[in-house]
């Protein structure tokens, strides 16, 4: 069993700044909250920060799968909240990144079993030990959302370039209010479709959302592959998507790095299709 050894613990109490608690949310399901949480956490940890990832989706946990840690999870958030185990025992060390830890959600429990105040205290406790606490929020705006947001001070809002996603995200941003200083990650953009006018552009999305843009991630089949295999793309710093996550992590850390934007990559098939003027299969 892995013991928790973050470097921050050795620092004197007064000098230790409180870590940043950021909830990753969207309202709409399936836009990539969990993937974003896993990848940003990985990127931040690869850059040397200590990071705790919290899966707040009680009953529908997925963050562990995306990190490839499902076989290593022994205890979950509710075990800690209900004081059956300590935080140290429940935190799972990541396979790939040294300073990254996961607190998994309970799979066979319900969201209304989470006490909001206790959740807040848990996040506060994590902030004392980690520079970043990223909370993976469930879809929707019900109790699960409210609990995930409790204890967070900042928000990253993930949106795909689709009309229904923009509507739902807008709703969530309205619910968050000004307190969380939400910033936007646009996920699953397909530049070629945008060019053909068959997908919303970054401007279309942000014309409604009006949020500071952290970056844009392109849609790639690789993402599904890595999710299934439990190897976040952020581990590949030199690949385009991995680099994009690292750029976003740098921006979160306050560095003056431009927001990553995907480039149009026309594949051979696209060019062929364009030549014949037909629909892509």
């Amino acid at each position, binding site marked *: 069993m892995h013991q928790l050894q973050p470097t921050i613990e050795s620092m004197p109490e007064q000098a230790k700044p409180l870590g940043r608690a950021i909830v990753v949310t969207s309202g709409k399901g399936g836009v990539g909250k969990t993937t974003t949480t896993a990848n940003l956490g990985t990127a931040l940890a690869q850059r040397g920060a200590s990071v705790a990832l919290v899966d707040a989706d009680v009953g529908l946990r997925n963050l562990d799968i995306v990190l490839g840690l499902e076989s290593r999870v022994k205890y979950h958030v509710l075990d800690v909240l209900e004081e059956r185990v300590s935080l140290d025992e429940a935190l799972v060390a990541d396979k790939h990144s040294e300073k990254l830890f996961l607190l998994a959600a309970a799979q066979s429990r319900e969201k209304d079993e989470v006490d909001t105040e206790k959740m807040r205290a848990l996040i506060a406790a994590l902030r004392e030990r980690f520079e970043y606490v990223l909370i993976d929020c469930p879809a929707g705006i019900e109790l699960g959302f409210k609990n995930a947001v409790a204890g967070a001070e900042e928000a990253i809002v993930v949106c795909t370039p689709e009309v229904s996603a923009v509507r739902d995200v*807008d709703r969530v941003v*309205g*619910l968050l209010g000004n307190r969380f200083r939400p910033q936007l990650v646009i996920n699953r953009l397909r530049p070629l479709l945008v060019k053909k006018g068959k997908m919303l552009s970054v401007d279309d999305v942000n014309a*409604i959302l*009006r949020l500071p843009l952290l970056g844009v991630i392109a849609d790639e089949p690789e993402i599904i592959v890595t999710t299934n295999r439990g190897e976040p793309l952020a581990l590949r710093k030199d690949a385009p998507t991995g680099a994009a996550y690292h750029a976003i992590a740098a921006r979160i850390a306050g560095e003056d790095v431009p927001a990553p934007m995907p480039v149009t990559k026309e594949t051979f098939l696209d060019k062929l299709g364009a030549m014949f003027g037909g629909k892509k299969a």
Partner: protein
Amino acid sequence: MWILKGVPYERLGTWRVALLRGKGLGLELVFAGRELGEAFEELEARLAERPGFYRGTSAIVNFGNAPPSSDVIVKLQSLLNEAGIELRALTGSAAIETLAGECGLPYEPADVHAAPELDRRRALRPRAEMRLSESAKSLVADFAGARADIAERRRRGEASVPQLELNDQPEPPAAEPSRPAALHLVETPPPTLYHTGTLRGGQALHHPGNIVVVGDVNPGAEIVASGDVLVFGRLAGVAHAGAQGDEAARVFAIDLRATQLRIATFIAADAESTPRVRTVPEAAIVRDGRIVIVPFDQIDQLQERGISSV
């Protein structure tokens, strides 16, 4: 609610038939436009929507300047009888008086019932009949029943906007320009709600009085005001002005692209699927029984309501 000659009344307006109901006056049916067949159908549907609601009331029918043939009157009478409404008299121009005589019905001169407001608006109405596109007509038909229901809910006191408490004093005689007639009529009107910031989807502003938003109103957001709605930004959600029945209420926006517009009991949506290109601020107002959108610099007939409520 409006106060008309001391009697509160409801307006269920369409661009063809207006059904008015007042406690002391009974019903006044106003037939504007010439397609009587469709107007009849609409009236029939409207009466069928709430069977028994009008039973025991009497109605006078206003044909304006266009007297129909006498068998139309017979048809109307039987339609009304079925709903338990007595056709009490005909009203309108002098030509109607002749018709009334032919049908053995009393005639009442029109000006007894028309408010000065109503007359002025009628005078502004162009002679030519409205031509609506097919999709616009279908939207109008869609909304006809809904409008009646909104009005009905208001009648039952279920407005989402708290009711203004207006004095039950009789309206003073036609005001001379120098006289502050407004002060006699109402209590201090509620202040304008002034909201800074973008209204996001799922958020709603409800207020008796005017509402001003400095910012955008996103799709999925809702604004309901008893007075005017002014958006100093983009209006994309649903805006309802004059929610308590004031048809003179207006909706203004720098960029007017509302999902749906409502003024009093009128509802409108853009019938075209491709959004219009907006280059100037615009206002939505009710004219001739429907909501129209007018470029800001062309509103010279901003109806004054005699009450300063900004």
